[in-house]
């Protein structure tokens, strides 16, 4: 049986018509997840995946989403043995909708980064090409066909970038669309839970499953969830393309070529591409980094080894803090927290942190103006093709946020779709929509998906023959 090419809708239909049973699908995918994990380093913890009697949609969750019953490590040594007493609300909703969680996927420690190089547990390889970044275990699990959906977080673009690396679909909804309760977020004002799937239609299903008001998360909002099933888009879409995309630092020719080709394809299919200007794009990744670092410094202050987590004893309280956090956090997290402490210190608060907060408003206003005119923005997802794991280049990850952090700063929904292939590795494009208009954005994305008709990738291509 070939499940990997099934859409969620088709799988559900197969259950309804009894051509598949949840039991056999769970068994098959559990087996597959374990095998592919060995091959690509996808999971931190494999789970059996609870199945309901009627349905089982194989899924995974990034390990910074709490799931009661097993450990939640956030890919940090500090939380190696931490069991959360509660589950993320988004995962509870997902499970109620038929998703079975087969594992907690690998990520950079606390989700700060897109490469899993900062995970103390393992390195995730890109199923498209060994030795290359997959961004996250969640995205790689989709590319490898280990699950049909992964739930993960996106604070500066991590989810969309990893989806781009892995040649799959990644969607971050509007801030407030999905409950953040149970997400161990490093930057609360930016982080949203989103979905990684193999196609736009699945993204619509998975996202609608986890969306909705959570009375216990005051940042979640009460908005109607009305984007699944997707209505058929009737008119060709109009997309705004910020001309500043070309001036990104370190923009690679492969991306320019792929993106220009995509624009041509879209134009040919009748999609109107309108060039617009978003001057703030240039500063957006810097602004997001400053805000994220300060929030991370504060958000991660509870990791002190007192109430939970791995404690390293010390001579006195302060010594214990220092030893616990020195041993528990990886180098990259420590650097990021130090940055956060620095830019929020009395000396620099005004020039950096306050500046970033003010600039965030400028970014939001610029985006609102553009989106008022044209409902969608189109940009590359990343300025470079998936890098080799061996490529140790200072600032690479920071440059990766060039096109993605805008949406987080403005709280807008955004989706990354696979658009092209360069030297055997996928290159993505990104659409950004208006707040709480996920339905329209998903429709536009489905349109673009059809026009591009990305060949897809089935690493299990020979299976079932």
């Amino acid at each position, binding site marked *: 049986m070939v499940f990997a090419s099934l859409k969620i809708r088709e799988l559900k239909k197969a259950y309804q018509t009894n051509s598949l049973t949840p039991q056999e699908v769970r068994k098959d995918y559990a087996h597959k997840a374990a095998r592919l994990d060995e091959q690509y380093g996808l999971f931190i913890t494999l789970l059996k995946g609870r199945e309901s009697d009627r349905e089982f949609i194989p899924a995974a969750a990034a390990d910074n*989403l*709490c799931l009661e019953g097993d450990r*939640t490590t*956030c890919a940090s040594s500090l*939380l190696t043995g*931490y069991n*959360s*007493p*509660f589950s*993320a609300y988004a995962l509870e909703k997902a499970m109620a909708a038929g998703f079975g969680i087969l594992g907690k996927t690998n990520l950079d420690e606390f989700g700060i980064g897109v490469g899993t190089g900062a995970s103390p547990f393992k390195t995730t390889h890109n199923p498209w090409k060994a030795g290359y970044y997959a961004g996250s275990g969640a995205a790689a699990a989709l590319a490898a066909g280990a699950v049909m959906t992964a739930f993960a977080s996106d604070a500066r673009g991590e989810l969309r970038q990893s989806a781009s690396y892995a040649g799959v679909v990644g969607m971050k909804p509007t801030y407030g669309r999905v409950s*953040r*309760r*149970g*997400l*161990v*977020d490093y*930057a*609360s*004002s930016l982080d949203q839970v989103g979905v990684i799937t193999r196609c736009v239609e699945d993204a619509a299903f998975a996202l609608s499953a986890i969306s909705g008001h959570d*009375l*216990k*998360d*005051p*940042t979640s909002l009460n908005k109607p969830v009305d984007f699944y099933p997707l209505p058929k888009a009737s008119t060709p879409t109009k997309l705004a393309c910020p001309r500043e995309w070309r001036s990104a630092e370190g923009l690679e020719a492969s991306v320019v070529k792929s993106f220009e080709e995509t624009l041509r394809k879209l134009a040919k299919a009748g999609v109107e591409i309108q060039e617009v200007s978003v001057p703030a794009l240039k500063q957006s990744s810097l602004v997001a980094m400053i805000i994220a670092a*300060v*929030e991370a*410094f*504060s958000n*991660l*202050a*509870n*990791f*002190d080894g*007192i*109430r*939970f987590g791995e404690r390293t004893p010390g001579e006195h*309280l*302060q010594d214990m*803090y220092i030893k616990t956090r020195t041993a528990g956090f990886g180098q990259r997290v420590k650097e990021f927290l130090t940055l956060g*402490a620095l830019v*929020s*210190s*009395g000396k620099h*608060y005004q020039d950096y*942190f306050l500046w970033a*907060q003010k600039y965030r408003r400028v970014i939001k206003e610029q985006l609102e103006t553009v989106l008022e005119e044209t409902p969608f923005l189109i940009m590359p997802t990343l300025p470079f093709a998936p890098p080799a794991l061996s490529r140790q280049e200072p600032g690479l990850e920071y440059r990766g946020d060039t096109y993605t952090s805008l949406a987080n700063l403005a709280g807008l929904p955004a989706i990354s779709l696979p658009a092209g292939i360069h030297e055997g590795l996928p290159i993505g494009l990104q659409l950004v929509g208006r707040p709480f208009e996920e339905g329209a954005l998903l429709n536009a994305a489905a349109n673009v998906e059809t026009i591009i008709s990305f060949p897809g990738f089935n690493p299990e291509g020979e299976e079932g023959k």
Partner: protein
Amino acid sequence: MMAAEFEPVIGLEIHVELMTDTKLFCGCPATFGEEPNTQVCPVCLGLPGHRPLLNRKAAEYAIKAALALNCQIASHTTFDRKNYFYCDLPKGYQISQFFYPMGTEGYVDINIEGKDRRIGLRQIHIEEDTGKLLHAGSIVDANFSRVDFNRAGVPLIEIVTHPDIRSAEEAKLFLQKLRAILLYTGISDCKMEEGSMRCDANVSLRPVGSQELFNKTELKNMNSFRSVQKGIEYEIIRQGKIFRKGGEVIPETRHFDEGRGTTKAMRSKFAASDYRCFPDPNVPPLRVSEEWVKKIAETLPELPDARFHRFVKLGLPEYDAELLTSNKELADFLDIALTYYKNAKTLSNWLMGDFLRLLNAAALDASQSKVTPKKLAELLTLVDQGTISGKIAKDVFEEMFATGKDPKDVIAEKGLIQISDTGELEKMADEILAQNPGSVADYKGGKEKALGFLVGQIMKATRGKANPKVANEVLLRKLQEL
């Protein structure tokens, strides 16, 4: 004399625990004195992935307090993180209101040595309490400490004054007045001993006439009004000595030593305090609508100042009015009693005399007394009607206080009804006159004092029940008839 050269500049920071059922950001009970770490959850323990949810009752209480303290109420308030590491602080930051506090620019009026003084309040804001450290042994040489997080997340308001206070006495009077006002609003029980009201004082000195502010010290660990007064007094003297030697006061936190009555420098928790305040992204700003404020304002009771003026208008001396209003339960008692009995001064005399004495002895407040305002009013009416004498009334009242019985029942049980029956008293007068011929002769001889003695004899024979006025009349008539 130091006072001639320097004047103290004092500002207070008062933390008051709000009497909400649950904590500020979670559903855990906010009650005091439970087993350690039994009233905790992922939110107040700051576990990964927790989300705080604002308790609107706490916001309502803070608004109520701010209104009672004459503050401007913010229409838009934020909840901000104050970041610092300490083991009693679960999240590594405290959620407080730094940028847009709930209330600003209020005041409290006090009266010191007959002069009115207005102490300005800079702001009132909401924040969460920390956990409590339990040291194994003394704080200095304990091998380990344990943390009880039951208190972590309990809602507090912090009230910050302007540096308007000029003496330790003023500080104490201000605190007492503040406490009375807050007790009237019912938002806190304001018990300094239990820590539901805590006060830190910022103290500095400056040459009289100067408007400059000099280095200040922050005094902590003052757990009663008396400690606040003593701590500040000590600090004023200590700083005065430094000034006179030409030295400079080190800005630092100082710990008040209750036993010694002194202050000493505290090792700072962690050197420089740079709190890196920023709005908590997990707690949206709170909009405070005019309608909400209006609704809360309608629940405010009459406050001490207004009540004081009303009591004075009712004819009470200022001293009585002041003392009564500072004791809400007693003043409430008076107000209810006034609906049954019109003479405020008589009531006040009783409340401030016998009633307060008995309450203090029994460690009760007026609301816990077995004597109800109505029963006291009945007793006083019986005195006015001449049913019993004022003296007997005191005995009756003691019995009422102990048993809660009606005055009429006590009087009947003990046979205390005043004898005003002239027939009975005439009979008795005849006997007394016959038994005391010497006194009769004295009276006849012009010694008017002898009459007093004879009345006394009647009172003695009736064990105080005779109406002295009637007994006097009867005796006078009999003596003239002789």
